[in-house]
């Protein structure tokens, strides 16, 4: 292959390095209005009145609007319809939007917003999800505060634990993680022609935004146009909540009949936008003396916040990955996504797995300790292979490189040489290594099957250049480039002449959301489908022009159709395309791809949950100062079996970026929330990794166990790189110091205080 598998330079890099790439705040209009949002000051209030008088009296203020001004439906179209665009009788979390202000400048809009007086009655609020689960608790959602629950009943759990010689059980907890995309949320909405509306903005899923804008305005979806601007980071944080921001902007554009820009301040973004669910995991492993795990039992609770948003699906993914990448005959899981009076949690890279992965991979090491085994050996002994049975009873197929990834990563990290028991280490500053592994189901899985489709348009122009239109978006991960490579390879047209067009819902088909590491597989396959149809039309013309008969082999190479038997016989693709045009051969096509066959039984929790899995292992080497608790991460080796690498440089970028987000999750990022109010809603207090907090080089290891379903065998890579970091680091810290911290993030305070407790 000439294009797929090569580190070709990304399509959008030039605009980005010159500052020419336009993000939403770079857009402007002559008659632009600016918006600001009035938010609930407290976690649970009954709204008595909204007094706009003082705000309206300020200069430059166009208007102040509430839910009463919404012409359409006040419910944001998420999985459930419980989240209003603007609060009506009550607000359920501090930061919930209540009113909107439009003014002629950002400062004036913000000032006016601060002058809108909300008269309210403060009501008692519930902050602890475990409390919320109790039958006697106050009810925020439904009859039991449970947005969704799942169960898995594989095998016979009592028998499994009876067979075990050693049983370990622990409880682990994890805090919120904030996406920290460097570009805050933002939208610009303007009235279009004939009652239509156009919304530009920062987003992952333009068709979700389309649904929301049509809903809030009560207009047909055909009159809504959504255009994704260059998006400055997302990681799941711009999957569903942009629907709220866009709905607000569109509402103001509709009401004022002017273009309206709504850009969140960093604090506002912290206070109101989605985050990784805090997690509570109680988990038990039972194993025989030789290390074979016979049973696993998990109770997993996610703190969903005030509205359901994506909690049901986050919970599902976490549940069906909760026992780790191991072949365990008996697994029982009970999981719950629970309502509390806090900002709603949502999608974040890993989507329910990082929390439970921290738990299960830490416990594997604690089990190894009990057994007196090297944690690598324990993992290798239980790792799933082709033919193994997953947690949901699915048989693992050919595309499984877990053992190779574990072994390669361990070798690169000098595991065997470096690993020694923590008791042997001395001194204030100590070194340690740790590892963690994961399995990751690619794409939406059985519970998301209704969304699992993709359409792509491929169009060849008269000069042989190509545009590809898909509904999935570029958000920095490199989708535009990877998909161009796939189309280029399939058509035999040079990479420089193939481009993925801007994400504009009037020009692109809906290919499902840009989530779940599904873009390469789903859009890639839809593109291949389209290209296959085009080649069926183009190839006969090429053969004719080359004088090659049907049975003779012909290939494409470097922009030419070439006879394999006689390579001197070749013709430029452009020439063939010109001929196709003159013969009125249709040169644009729609490709489609859909997944069948995934299953999940809600009663038993069993089924073929995903059509493909990515397997990963991370090794962390740390140095810990036990006097100050400071952790220095010396090495991170991160290995993944992703089936087939389309662009190695971009794949490495995902691996490295995900590892550092995972490092932040594991060691630094501590959102402090007290009674529903965030105390550090900014980058000063919420600590993300700088260049000095990471090793000089995050070392990627890639294995390619091609997957039948994926384009050229490719699987998904967006999320796996984050998942193993926190447990690998926690395990490394334990290995260095003998201190086990079971609550993320593992900040120095916890290490030092645990060390003091031991003395």
């Amino acid at each position, binding site marked *: 292959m000439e294009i797929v598998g090569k580190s070709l330079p990304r399509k959008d890099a030039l605009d980005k390095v010159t500052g020419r790439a336009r993000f939403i705040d770079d857009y402007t209009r002559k008659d632009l209005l600016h918006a600001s949002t009035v938010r609930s000051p407290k976690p649970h209030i009954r709204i008595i009145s909204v007094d706009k008088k003082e705000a309206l009296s300020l200069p430059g203020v166009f208007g102040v609007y509430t839910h009463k001004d919404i012409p359409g439906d006040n419910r944001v179209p998420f999985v459930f319809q419980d989240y209003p665009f603007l609060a009506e009788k009550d607000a359920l979390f501090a930061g919930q939007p209540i009113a909107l202000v439009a003014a002629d400048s950002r400062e004036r809009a913000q000032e006016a917003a601060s002058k809108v007086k909300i008269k309210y009655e403060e009501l008692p609020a519930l902050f602890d999800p475990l409390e919320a689960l109790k039958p006697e608790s106050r009810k925020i959602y439904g009859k039991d505060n449970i947005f969704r629950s799942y169960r898995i009943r594989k095998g016979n759990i009592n028998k499994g634990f009876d067979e075990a010689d050693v049983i370990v059980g622990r409880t682990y907890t994890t805090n919120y993680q904030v996406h920290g995309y460097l570009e805050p949320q933002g939208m610009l909405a303007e009235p279009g022609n004939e009652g239509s509306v156009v919304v530009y903005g920062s987003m992952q899923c333009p068709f979700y935004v389309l649904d929301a804008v049509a809903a809030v305005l009560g207009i047909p979806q055909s009159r809504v146009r959504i255009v994704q601007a260059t998006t400055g980071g997302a*990681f799941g944080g711009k999957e569903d909540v942009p629907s709220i921001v866009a709905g607000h902007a569109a509402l103001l554009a509709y009401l004022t009949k002017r273009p309206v820009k709504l850009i969140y301040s960093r604090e506002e973004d912290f206070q109101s936008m989605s985050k990784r669910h805090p997690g509570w995991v109680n988990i038990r492993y039972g194993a025989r003396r030789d290390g074979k795990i016979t049973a696993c039992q998990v109770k997993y609770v996610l703190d969903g916040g005030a509205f359901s948003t994506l909690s049901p699906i986050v919970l599902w993914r976490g549940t069906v990955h909760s026992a780790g990448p191991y072949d365990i005959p008996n697994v029982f899981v009970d999981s719950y996504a629970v309502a509390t009076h806090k900002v709603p949690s949502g999608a974040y890279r890993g989507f329910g797995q990082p929390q439970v992965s921290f738990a299960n991979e830490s416990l594997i090491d604690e089990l190894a300790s009990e057994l007196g085994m090297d944690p690598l050996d324990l993992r290798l002994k239980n790792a799933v292979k082709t033919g193994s049975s997953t947690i949901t009873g699915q048989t693992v197929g050919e595309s499984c490189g877990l053992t190779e990834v574990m072994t390669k990563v361990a070798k690169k990290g000098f595991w065997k040489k470096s690993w020694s028991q923590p008791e042997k280490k001395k001194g204030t500053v100590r070194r340690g290594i740790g590892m963690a592994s994961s399995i990751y189901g690619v794409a939406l899985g059985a519970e998301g099957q209704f969304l699992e489709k993709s359409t792509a348009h491929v169009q060849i122009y008269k000069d042989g250049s190509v545009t590809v239109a898909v509904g999935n978006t570029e958000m920095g991960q490199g989708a535009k480039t990877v998909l161009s490579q796939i189309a280029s390879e399939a058509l035999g047209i040079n990479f420089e002449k193939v481009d993925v067009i801007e994400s504009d819902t009037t020009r692109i088909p809906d290919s499902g959301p840009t989530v779940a590491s599904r873009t390469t597989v789903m859009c890639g396959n839809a593109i291949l489908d389209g290209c296959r149809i085009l080649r069926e039309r183009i190839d006969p013309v090429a053969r004719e022009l080359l004088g090659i008969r049907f049975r003779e082999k012909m290939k494409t190479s470097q922009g030419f159709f070439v006879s394999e038997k006689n390579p001197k016989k070749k013709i430029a693709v452009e020439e063939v395309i010109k001929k196709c045009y003159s013969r009125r051969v249709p040169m644009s096509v729609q490709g489609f791809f859909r997944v069948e066959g995934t299953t999940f039984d809600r009663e038993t929790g069993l089924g073929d949950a995903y059509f493909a899995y990515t397997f990963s292992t991370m090794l962390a080497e740390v140095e810990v100062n036990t006097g100050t608790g400071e952790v220095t991460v010396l090495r991170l080796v991160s290995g993944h079996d992703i089936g087939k690498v389309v662009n190695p440089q971009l794949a490495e970028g995902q691996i490295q970026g995900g590892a550092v987000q995972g490092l932040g999750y594991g060691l630094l990022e501590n959102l402090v929330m007290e009674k529903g109010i965030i105390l550090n809603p900014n*980058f000063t207090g919420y600590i993300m990794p700088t260049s000095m907090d990471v090793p*000089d080089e995050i070392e990627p290891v890639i294995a390619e166990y091609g997957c039948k379903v994926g384009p050229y065998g490719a699987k998904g890579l967006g999320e796996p790189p984050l998942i193993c970091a926190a447990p690998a680091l926690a395990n490394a810290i334990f290995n260095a110091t003998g201190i086990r911290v079971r609550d993320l993030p593992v900040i120095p305070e916890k290490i030092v205080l645990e060390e003091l407790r031991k003395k």
Partner: protein
Amino acid sequence: MKIEFVLNGKEVSAETDPRRSLLRVLREDFCLTGTKEGCGKGECGACTVLLDGEPVNSCIIPAGQAAGKTVLTIEGLSRGNRLHPIQAAFIEEGAVQCGFCIPGMVLSAKSLLDKQNDPSIKDIKKAISGNICRCTGYTKIIQAVKKAAGKLAGKKR
């Protein structure tokens, strides 16, 4: 207040409240939107510009303090279609993902390479420690700066 300074090599003047941030003046009055606002408090580096050659957070500089100084933004770095070697290195090494941190990151790197011919990895990490990147994990950015150092050294010979 009238504020006169040199912007990307040209003498300019802005008529504005001197307490408006330099960032806003650059983006709104001069329509140079390459410099970004990520946090508004000097905590992320997305707004980095070079002020008299030194990297600063323009979001917390009152425009009045630009008077008499030289300001370089990302737009001032490339000449037409000719990229600065640092920009070329960032593309070649795959150091760009979402792009939001890049203008600030490139300028911080330029300031380092203007002073040091052959910076160590440690020097590079320190020079960009005020530029947060959430996408890349920094590895390829460090490699790009090292590559750029090589390119610039080659040019000098």
